């Protein structure tokens, strides 16, 4: 049997829009993953600390505030600083296409925009997290 994928769902910054984060958290849990939801208003440092402590396979960052180009690179940087660069980082939210390309260059594995079905995210994580 495949081992259980552990995912941290995180809300960085001051953004309070948590509908998407909660839906994803629940969909991943229903798909058999272990999900840790950080709750709101997390700093990049807090998110990375949670990912490291929880020995997460992946971090899902939900952000709808437009601050993704500041906050996501800091999370990537903090993961590297903590020797956790193997943690898969995926982003969901309102991220324009060219920003998404730039984030992928910096090490984000995938960016899911509005309307992405949860099944697509589940399949992506199953494919991308090493068994």
């Amino acid at each position, binding site marked *: 049997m495949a081992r259980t994928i552990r995912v941290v769902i995180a809300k960085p910054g001051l953004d309070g829009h948590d509908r998407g984060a909660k839906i994803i958290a629940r969909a991943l849990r229903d798909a058999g993953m272990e999900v840790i939801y950080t709750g709101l208003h997390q700093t990049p440092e807090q998110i990375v600390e949670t990912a490291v402590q929880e020995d997460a396979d992946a971090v899902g960052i939900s952000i709808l505030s437009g601050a993704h180009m500041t*906050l996501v690179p800091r999370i990537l940087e903090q993961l590297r600083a903590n020797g956790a660069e193997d943690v898969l980082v995926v982003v969901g939210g309102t991220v324009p296409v060219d920003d998404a390309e730039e984030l992928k260059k910096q090490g984000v594995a995938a960016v899911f925009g509005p309307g992405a079905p949860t099944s697509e995210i589940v399949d992506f994580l199953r494919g991308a997290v090493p068994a």
Partner: protein
Amino acid sequence: MATTEDPKTGLGATGAWRRELYDAKPERAGELFSTMSGIENEPLYTAESVDVDYERDLGFPGVYPFTRGVYPSMYRGRLWTMRQFAGFGTAEETNERFRYLLEHGQTGLSTAFDMPTLMGYDSDHARSLGEVGREGVAVDSLDDMETLFSGIPLADVSTSMTINAPAAMLLAFYACVGEKQGTPIAALRGTVQTDILKEYIAQKEWIFPPQPSMRLVVDMIEWCSREMPLMHPVSISGYHIREAGSTAAQELAFTLADGFAYVDACIERGLDVDEFAPRLSFFFNAHLDFFEEIAKYRAARRIWATRLREHYGAKNPRSWLMRFHTQTAGVSLTAQQPEVNLIRTAIEALAAVLGGTQSLHTNSFDEALALPTEHAVRLALRTQQVIAHETGAVNTIDPLGGSYYVEHLTNELERQAYDYFERIDKLGGVVPAIEENFFQREIAEASYRYQSEVEQKQRIVVGVNRYELDDEPEPELLRIDPALEQKQIERVQALRARRDGAAAESALANLKRAAAGDGNLMEPIVAASRAYVTMGEMCDALRDVWGVWRETPVF
């Protein structure tokens, strides 16, 4: 009610029709026929299916229980206020957008603040990094507010401000700008959102725990009733509850429950209900299920009027009136084929108008992607103008009143709201229910259910799970210049360096002392604003005294 029984079946005529004619043909399979919120719909409503007593349940426009509208003449007397929500970057950029909207026929202003402002952090706070001016305008002090309304005489406009946890500070800034323009603050008109309860429930931009937050709300209501009688100090909001994924019934019930909680808190302070209730206002969502939305507004008016008159004993008929602002559903907008959002928004806006709204914001079609461009904002405003001037929807009051279906839905939503009131009462009221995550859990359930229905294609979203395009053109988006953040940081730091430091310090110390006591905090907040104490400094002082709120998240 007269019913015609079918002699063969013993059923009413509707039942007979259903058995003999309707059920003879199969229904389409796959998609649900229930409302978007999950209320089951019959294929047909007739006089047999709806119990309405005209005088008791509907009445006349401007007459208790106001189901058909709060004013006798409604849109034949005055159209709704077309009020587009705007704000981004620094006060200068937003001031420019305000003037643009006023030039194009908008009749009221509505200010969107950025996340740091909503959360009570100055732009140079570490937690503000990357968020300054992104989702609204950055306002750190009276200085920014002066720029924001520069060249706009406050005597001539009504201004709505979407601000909650630090609402008292922004109201004080606004009053000070009026003062500086030479307008008596008693003449200033507008609305401050101030609805902290729905922040804990849905929008999640909070600072302090519920008790001191409620005190600030009551302070504002009390102060406005004396000093700024034309201001609506609270806009009790279902909008964000719906955006967070609630059903229409939950939006209705939770918003009204919040409204009752504010009334209770004011009465507890010793205010007379007729002193403040006429200035309470509401804010609802306009989602896509057209008839359900119209029924929601009608039920809301009836419940509010009934509760205020029967339970709170309000004598002034103005206390019974539920006046509300409406915004079309941001959450219904799709990033796919964004122009289609124009059509969604038009239908939602029409529902708000047929539901009798007092003011309306129509979303721009590009808002699932970024803040709207000027072009998109103009089209959104034009949508309202077409409804107002070309469709005839304004010619007759509550034109759907008496529709069997709409009256049935109105009754059903009202019934579901009363069920929720009972459950909330059993939990000890709104604040204990928040602390137990009751609302948050109900909303999470509803939003997950809807998402599952979309993914199983039981609900079709055009361009998302049917009629998709393989190759979507990249739309033109509004980009916020990242340099604006630095500019705003320099602005607030320059202000701190140039103001009278001793005066600012003493005003801040005074506020902190007052917060530890139990007097009304508006006077010390206004005094601190005049001394150019920043919003973040005031909030920090209050954080020191009251602590901060933390949620235990549920999903």
